[in-house]
């Protein structure tokens, strides 16, 4: 645990502080994210109880930012976990079984890689309607490809290591070998790629929400806030700059941290 904490670098601290703020702020702010203050429409920053002012229909900006960050990160983490589970299961099976099965499984991954997946997600949205559940299932199901490739490579390398061969020779059932010996050894790399998947998913979710195909009103997300800000930027630039800046900070920090972890573990 100590070792893990020492590996936490400033970008991750920034994200953790932002998450904490997003969780705490809604509880202590006098306004909720969908509450309209009729007295203060498009209020400037630091007016009354609105620290960052209000938007074009009088909703508190800070409360909306906190709620949007919550939704965006929740979708991202949920979808990244889906991709982690699917990716590890697929990659570990392919790497462990090897041979024809491996080839077929990885061909499938290659084929999916070649597809313009954003359009597939949009197609799914069009077909099954727009719901937050579908947003993250759709994203999680296409973001597992890299994880599967990486895990497969790791498992194939591990399979040749003496301690695995010894376990096999001792008659340990494959299930136990995989759970007890293989998975713990790929945890680090998987964590690094999980960290890199989160910003990818944040990007996809915000992209969909920005186009009106993702999270739907009254729920909000950073993508929706950027969209609202962009529509109203000639009146109140703050509406664009705050969620846009926040989104970029989260994306940059997660990418830097993920790349650092990846370089450490591989």
């Amino acid at each position, binding site marked *: 645990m100590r070792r893990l904490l020492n590996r936490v670098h400033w970008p991750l601290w920034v994200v953790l502080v932002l998450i904490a703020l997003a969780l705490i702020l809604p509880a202590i702010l006098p306004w909720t994210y969908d509450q309209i203050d009729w007295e203060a429409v498009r209020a400037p920053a630091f007016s009354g109880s609105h620290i960052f002012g209000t938007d074009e229909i009088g909703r508190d900006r800070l409360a909306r930012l906190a709620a949007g960050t919550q939704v965006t990160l929740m979708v991202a983490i949920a979808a990244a976990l889906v991709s982690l589970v699917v990716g590890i299961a697929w990659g570990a099976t392919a790497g462990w079984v090897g041979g024809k099965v491996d080839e077929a499984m990885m061909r499938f991954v290659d084929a999916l890689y070649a597809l313009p997946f954003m*359009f597939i997600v949009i197609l799914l949205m069009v077909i*099954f309607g727009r719901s937050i559940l579908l947003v993250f299932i759709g994203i999680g199901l296409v973001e597992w490809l890299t994880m599967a490739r990486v895990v497969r490579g790791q498992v194939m390398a591990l399979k040749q290591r003496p301690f695995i061969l010894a376990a096999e020779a001792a008659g340990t059932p494959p299930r136990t070998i995989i759970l007890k010996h293989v998975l713990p050894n790929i945890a680090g790399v998987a964590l690094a790629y999980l960290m890199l998947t989160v910003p990818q998913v944040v990007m996809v979710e915000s992209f969909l929400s920005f*186009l009106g195909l993702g999270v739907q009103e009254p729920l909000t997300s950073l993508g929706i806030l950027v969209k609202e800000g962009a529509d109203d930027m000639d009146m109140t*630039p703050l509406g664009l*700059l705050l969620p*846009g800046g926040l989104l970029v900070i989260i994306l940059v920090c997660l990418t830097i941290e993920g790349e650092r972890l990846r370089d450490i573990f591989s």
Partner: protein
Amino acid sequence: MLALVARRLMTAIPTLLAIILASFFLMRLAPGGPFDGERPLPPETQAALQTAYGLDKPLWEQAWIYISRLVQGDFGPSLVYRDFTVSELVAQGLPISLTLGGLAIVLALVIGISAGLSAAVRAGKAADKTIMMLATVATALPTFVTGPALALLFGLWLGLLPVSGTGDGWSWLIMPVVALALPVSGAIAKLTRAGLATVLKQDHIRTARARGLPETKILFKHGLRPALVPVASYLGPAAAGLLTGAVVVETVFGLPGLGRYFVQGALNRDYPLVLGVVTLYAALIILFNLFADLIYGWLDPRMRDG
């Protein structure tokens, strides 16, 4: 080289067909249709509309009709833009999207390769670290943030560039192209830097140095070409990324390109329009991958038979 092209084309056609069929059936599985308005239409009107657009025939027959018309360049009528065929909309949008994407990839290559190159020759120094940090930041810049931010800064505040639409001249292209190119250029910079770092340690470079060749010649003639192989293999995914980015950029800057029709079609369940655009996107990506393979073969002669 010709064999490679032929083989790639042989696999491209079935792939394209599979994508068309898959998206065709997916669209038809969708609950709700384009004629579901606020008020339900009388059943006779609904039946008449279904017959007029051929939606009452069996699915396989519809698919067959669709594909046989597609081969002749007929994407069918748009269900939402009632006065236009999808082919007309696409013919209008494609040049704009191609211009945007083409200029963006050229800009990204120029910025990315020169940034990667200048970082690699200063390996380990502060300039190297700064450039690489900037590249990381660039890859994390979503077009739907940079687009509006650029429009705010250069369009509204400084008043230098048009905020929306395709005005006279070419100044309307600047901001969309820059917003599109930024993340791709970051990725290319990283790949170039990593590729050069590996290549510059190899024997043929040491030999060139030992023979006293000027450093610039070593870098450009012997170093850069093999170092760009990873960049070439990134071009395929980059094209897919640019097409996706173009959807946002066209929406943000109000450009009537393919991407905007795609979003409009998706929001309004305009099946023929969405299908047509997806088919075109798939064809473009397949074509671009082929092009990337050719560049790959040019950079690395060993790949030519592959």
